[in-house]
């Protein structure tokens, strides 16, 4: 379980988060929605402690990680996988080594075992046979899938997705959505998905949280989100329908 309590975060004079409270239960897929710059991606980075909160508490599996050092975060990060918006594949090594990264860093697995695991997760994201390719040789959708395979390779309990379908064509986006859903079902992970894409949100989400003016202005099920009479949510949904 991940529990965020009264999280504040500013950048210079801009207060982005001004008291976010959120709880993500075991096995749940939480979708975080909000306008650009509302601090959705910042929340993911705060959970992983890639940046630190100005105030508030972050509890992961009953452990307060808010003030953890880099060394203390190692076991916490090993439980998590993150799919970055830009995929963030290491461009100096091939797909095989990208996906094998955590296995090589944190396990004593043999080369054979690592190769088998890499093949397994690449098959799961429907990308068998690309092990020798360099990230620069992959399309945007393939990069996201390799990044998902990399996140899955170490069998994480939590998966954090930062705008997984942004910049992809609708068919590739659909594939990614299906993979997110399949991942949750096949690997029983708890997921947080930050997205602008309402199709994706309704496809993968068990619960929605809307960040607005630095706080969670809505939290509930997708059906409750749809039924909301909050003018902002009504407009948000209407804009989504207009473009979809």
């Amino acid at each position, binding site marked *: 379980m991940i529990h965020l309590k009264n999280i504040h975060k500013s950048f210079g004079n801009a207060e982005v988060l001004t008291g976010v409270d959120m709880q993500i239960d075991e096995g749940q897929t939480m979708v975080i929605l909000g306008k650009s710059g509302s601090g959705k991606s910042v929340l993911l980075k705060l959970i992983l402690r890639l940046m630190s909160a100005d105030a508030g508490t972050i509890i992961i599996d009953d452990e307060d990680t808010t003030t953890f050092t*880099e060394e203390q975060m190692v076991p916490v*990060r090993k439980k998590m996988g993150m799919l*970055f918006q830009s995929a963030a594949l290491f*461009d100096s090594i091939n797909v095989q080594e990208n996906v094998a990264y*955590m296995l090589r860093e944190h396990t004593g697995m043999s080369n054979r075992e690592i190769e088998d695991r890499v093949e397994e997760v690449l098959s799961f994201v429907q990308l068998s046979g690309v092990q020798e390719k360099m990230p620069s040789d992959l399309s945007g959708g393939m990069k996201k899938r390799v990044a998902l395979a990399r996140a899955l390779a170490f069998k994480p309990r939590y998966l954090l997705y930062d705008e997984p379908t942004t910049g992809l064509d609708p068919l590739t986006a659909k594939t990614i959505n299906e993979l997110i859903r399949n991942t949750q079902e096949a690997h029983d992970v708890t997921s947080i998905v930050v997205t602008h894409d309402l199709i994706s949100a309704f496809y993968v989400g068990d619960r929605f949280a809307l960040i607005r003016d630095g706080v969670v202005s809505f939290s509930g099920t997708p059906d409750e989100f749809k039924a909301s009479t909050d003018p902002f949510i009504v407009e948000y949904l209407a804009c989504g329908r207009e473009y979809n």
Partner: protein
Amino acid sequence: MRKIEVRHGGILEKGAIHTYELFRLTIDSVRYMFTRPSYFDTILEQMYQIGVRSLSIVLLTCFFTGMVLALQTGYQIARFGAKVYIGVVVALSMVRELGPVLTALVVAGRVGAGIAAELGSMQVTEQIDAMRAMATNPVKKLVTTRLIALLIMLPILTIIGDIVGIVGGMLISLYSLGLDFSFYKSTTIQALALQDIFTGLAKPVVFAFIIALVGCHLGLSTTGGTEGVGKSTTMSVVTSSILIFLFDFLLVKIFFLMFETG
């Protein structure tokens, strides 16, 4: 990896923050030399990239510098009948000063810029964040490995540069200034004291710290996309070069105090 947010401070405040972060990075990267994992393969790869691939440019620079040094001094001191001392001048200049400094400047231009550009690109494309998210310490993995590689390779490159510079000076002395080989060799060997070798090898160790840490620090603190990467790369070469000259001066002062005669 602790970072201080640079807000709207003046140039002095930013300078102070960069200095503090560089100091912290130095402490951390040295501390991580003695912790696991050792990243031995990465260090070997960096030794090849940093050392072996810089060899040709170091050879060229030092060879021509040695030749020019012999030519310039040779014709000048010949007027005072002191042509026989060319070997001494070339050897002492190369080993004490030109070899270490020129090698460091060439490596700062080639390797320091490369480090800043590589790490800067990784920073702006979230690869550093990805590394941290995968429970890897980027300072240990990226900075310490490059620092170790430079600490090993820069002194080796400097020794090679010194030798090639002396050979360049010797060729000019033999074929252009008409000196005798055995005489040149004996004056060169006699001129070089143990302290010259020590000072000549102590410098590249300090310069290795400067090149690795300035390049890594500026790379890791890159912001502003590809434009930021360009700025970090340029800043890396400029800052490293200035610090190399500054620390060269300080080291010479210290060595003079230590050995009196320098």
